[in-house]
């Protein structure tokens, strides 16, 4: 009973907060944009939050707002897509030359940043693959960090199995789909 009594004010407070945010933006059906100080911004994490303690993948990632404002260039590093073994996020030795090329490109222009997109073949369950794709991108990020690229210039994301390059249902297609793509980010012109 006591628990229930405590929960109601919490829900009410939440409802009021959400309603207030909705009113301020006058977009009841749209998406509330992300801005400084709103929930969802890493700067907003209070003293109780535990942002640190990152895993092995090159440590904690930089603020996403630093990347959202940049212009993606998918062609620049398209030749250096790294491929993976089944259900693995380990960078194979014969893929390291491609990562060296990506590192050189990034180190030649400090104004650029990088998005690494992890992808999977169609085997594996959906959310597992979304997590696996992320681990592939994080493994590539870690390798680039070891090659001297500041990991704060790199952000990762995963498409799971939602963006196959080959829609086939056999190993020749799957081996192409288990990959990490590199997207170069340029500062917005005039910014």
């Amino acid at each position, binding site marked *: 009973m006591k628990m229930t009594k405590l929960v109601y004010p919490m829900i009410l407070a939440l409802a009021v907060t959400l309603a207030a945010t909705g009113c301020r933006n006058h977009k009841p059906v749209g998406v509330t944009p992300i801005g400084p100080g709103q929930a969802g911004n890493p700067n907003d994490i209070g003293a109780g939050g535990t942002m640190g303690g990152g895993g092995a993948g090159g440590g904690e990632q930089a*603020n996403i707002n630093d990347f959202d404002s940049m212009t993606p260039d998918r062609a620049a590093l398209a030749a250096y897509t790294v491929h993976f073994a089944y259900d693995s996020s380990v960078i194979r030795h014969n893929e390291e030359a491609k990562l060296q090329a990506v590192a050189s490109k990034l180190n030649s222009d400090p104004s650029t940043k990088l998005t690494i997109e992890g992808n999977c073949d169609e085997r*594996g369950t959906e959310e597992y693959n979304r997590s696996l794709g992320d681990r592939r991108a994080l493994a590539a990020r870690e390798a680039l960090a070891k090659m001297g690229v500041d990991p704060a210039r790199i952000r990762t*994301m995963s498409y799971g199995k939602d963006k196959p390059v080959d829609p086939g249902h056999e190993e020749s297609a799957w081996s192409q789909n288990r990959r990490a793509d590199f997207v170069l980010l340029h500062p917005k012109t005039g910014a």
Partner: protein
Amino acid sequence: MKIRLEIYLSVLLTALTVVLCRGQDNQNEITITRPTSGLGTTPPIPVSIEGFGSDVTAILKFDLYVQGFTFVAPDAAQYQISGTSAGNVVGRVADRFAKTTILSRSYNGSTLRGQAHAFADDIVFAITGKKGIAQTRIAFKVQAASGAGEIYVADFDGHNAKAVTDDGVIVSAPAWAPGRSVLYYNSYKLGNPDIFYHNLKTGDRHVIAHYSGSNISPAASPDGSRVAMVMSHGGSPNIWVAGADGSHPKKLTSTSEDSSPCWSPDGQWICFATKIHERRVLAKVPAGGGEVQVIRTSGTPNPTEPDWSPDGKWIAFTMQAGEFDICVMPADGSAAPTILVRGEDPSWSPNSRTLICARRSGGHYVLSLLDVYTKQVKDIRQISGSDSEPAWAR
């Protein structure tokens, strides 16, 4: 001496044979009845259905089949369901053995479909004493070949489906806030896999997690005050818990291959899939933080996508051994998992008896209902494209 020994031996042998046969009999009995759980082995309850129009008959049969009933002639039925559906549904259930009427009622909801579902729920309650599922709702994702998709909500049988997003981007993993018309889901609308809060009544929606890396697989706590999710801005995909609005996120795990969190119904635990000592396992962690404990799932390799039943007794999950199978095990680990049917991503009905899951069919998914006791499976009505990642409102 010799004769005596022979007699002695033959008596001993006879006694042994009797004991052995008894043992075998007992074994057979155990094999047949499976008194531990009845998962996948319970015979369906035979009923007959007479007198309704074909549309109402079809609805009743669908609703009852996925809750463990089978259809036979009236003289073979344990329960005889009869009535009419001219204008509105008028229904009756008789117990053929007890020779009594256990339900007699007329319905006047707005549609015949709605009336038939209400009658189906009354039938289930009259026969089993359990609340039925025929008037419940589900959410799921519908994906086009391009990879883009939308989040849908529908009746539990796939009828009255309605898209609640219109973004034309990759979406995934809808999850209900318990008891409310509120969904959390993952959308790439802002160019990153982010977690959205969406109030379906007001249309209000907010991004509650938009960090570098993944922000995926949301799961609302049973009291609605918190949300568990997978985020990777800390350097690897881990389980995090935040307030219902995404505030004060706290990292709960330091395992590095986490996916698909779900809550225990008492709100104490978060169960998820991960890898520990090079083995893919299910594990649980106290929702307030603490030590990660492995959940034993012997005989079911590569478990993912756990869902804890609302009554607290079961954990359903997907195992992968070449193909994908739906498994159910006691949440307290007191018995090994039971492998039921091909399928992925199970979600429990509010009454903890039926699962909705996704099944591969060619290059896409279809959604199906599975009665875990009888293993009866039926596809729900599909939306064109690939329908997957179902979440039962509860």
